[in-house]
């Protein structure tokens, strides 16, 4: 077992993948809890699509190194527009997101359809390239993680109040639109950081699945945050190890990013099963409470 979980990371590229995966796992776990309590999974999903034109433009301007800055500009723009439009209370959140998502994505498709040499890099964008991550990618992810920790520590209480009871938080004098903007920007940053490793399609799983699993396990916010971060770490570690072992030892090629996600989803399935079993067993006891 130790061989299976430790040995794969002897190779430098696997060690880098592990570092990136661990940072992302913890980061996505923590920010995912905010996504969960604010019910912003759809926003996170929309941002993964809205970064598309940014990726294309970034790539056209300065090749591979332009992808992250391009994605970042588009993600921040989309999160800002979303906050602005929804702050008026006139248009519902999901309608706003649908407009943003489709218009950004269509722009990306138009841009990419004018290119011929793009397909290989596009695959990396869709499914990530955690095995070829380099030092600067890791530094970007680490910087986002530090920023996220600072924001969550400084604004944790206002964000919690705003997520639980917006009208009360407004009446208490919190600037809800500003808090929304900070929270949405944080989600945008995390999405961009994670896109490199697991790709746009799977990043939503990194954000939502550990937090949702933790929610199944506990009702207490501090516990949920800790469990979500722990699950994110484990998912990255075991997912990478499983993908390595399958590919090297058994000749079955498993995509690293997708395997991480599958491990996370397996954890969710287990928690769900456990909860169902627990409920079935505990029903007579809870009824008297």
């Amino acid at each position: 077992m130790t061989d299976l979980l430790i040995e794969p990371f002897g190779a430098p590229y696997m060690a880098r993948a592990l570092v990136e995966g661990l940072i992302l796992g913890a980061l996505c776990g923590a920010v995912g809890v905010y996504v969960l309590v604010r019910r912003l999974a759809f926003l996170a999903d929309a941002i993964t699509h809205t970064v598309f034109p940014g990726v294309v433009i970034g790539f056209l301007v300065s090749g591979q190194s332009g992808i992250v800055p391009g994605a970042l500009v588009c993600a921040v723009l989309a999160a800002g527009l979303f906050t602005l439009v929804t702050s008026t209370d006139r248009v519902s959140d999901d309608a706003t997101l649908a407009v943003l998502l489709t218009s950004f994505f269509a722009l990306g498709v138009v841009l990419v359809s004018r290119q011929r040499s793009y397909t290989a890099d596009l695959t990396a964008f869709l499914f990530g390239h955690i095995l070829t991550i380099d030092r600067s990618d890791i530094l970007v992810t680490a910087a986002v993680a530090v920023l996220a920790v600072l924001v969550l520590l400084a604004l944790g209480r206002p964000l919690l109040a705003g997520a639980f009871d917006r009208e009360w938080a407004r009446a208490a004098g919190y600037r809800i639109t500003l808090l929304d903007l900070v929270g949405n920007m944080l989600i945008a940053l995390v999405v961009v950081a994670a896109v490199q490793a697991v790709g746009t399609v799977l990043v939503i799983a990194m954000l939502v699945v550990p937090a949702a699993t933790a929610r199944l396990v506990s009702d207490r916010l501090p516990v949920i945050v800790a469990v979500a971060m722990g699950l994110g770490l484990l998912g990255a570690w075991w997912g990478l190890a499983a993908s390595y072992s399958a590919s090297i030892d058994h000749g079955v090629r498993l995509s690293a990013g997708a395997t991480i996600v599958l491990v996370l989803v397996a954890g969710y399935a287990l928690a769900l099963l456990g909860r169902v079993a627990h409920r079935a067993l505990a029903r007579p006891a809870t009824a008297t409470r």
Partner: protein
Amino acid sequence: MPPPVHDAAIVFTHASVAYDRFPAVEQVNGTVRPGEIVALVGPNGAGKSSLIKAVLGLVPVVAGSIVVLGRPPAQARRQVAYVPQADTLDPNFPISVAQVVLMGRYRRIGWLRPPGRADRAAAAAALAAVGLEHRARDRFGLLSGGQRQRVLLARAIASEPAVLVLDEPFNGVDVVSQEALLGAVRELTARGAAVIISTHDLTLAQSACDRVCLLNRRQFAFGPPADVLTPPLLRQAYGGAALELADHGLILAR
């Protein structure tokens, strides 16, 4: 003799309030004094909620003025506590009763400092004041509707407000919780807080409140319950929603 200015917690002067650019309620006049409970009464859509939000500084006063503790409403927020309707909140939200009450201390705690002993003591005392100290560790959503409403009142009490604003706190609330809510509100008024309660319940307005503001798009009366909750005034304010009984009583449709 009118009370001196500093004896008024909230002063409405020909106040008109707009909600989403449409006038919601106009020409509100009156004073809420420290230590008294004022009921906002009127049919659905009368503008009770809009007036409450104007006192909280969340909805603009478009004509006249509302002065809260000598200041514009938005600048008085730290001394004003709001109790929203409990059923507007997500019962699945992972938060404990104690955490909800502690929110009342957030503005005092500040941004980075963890809650101190005084904050926890104030939150615990507030929860005891509504009779729910034994539920502190339970998840908020597990409580009954009336108990949740009491927790939200405890959150307001924890902030040690000079003005307390409650939006329909008795909707769908059982008798035990109603008594607990009223008892805790009276404790606050005994310490000098001014209280505004919007309610559909005229009996409650009559029995529990010192004065009543009768609204329907405009103010029809503001004064002691016996003077305001009279069939002629209620008939005026409720219009077609009022059904007269043979013994000169009234039935009011919501």
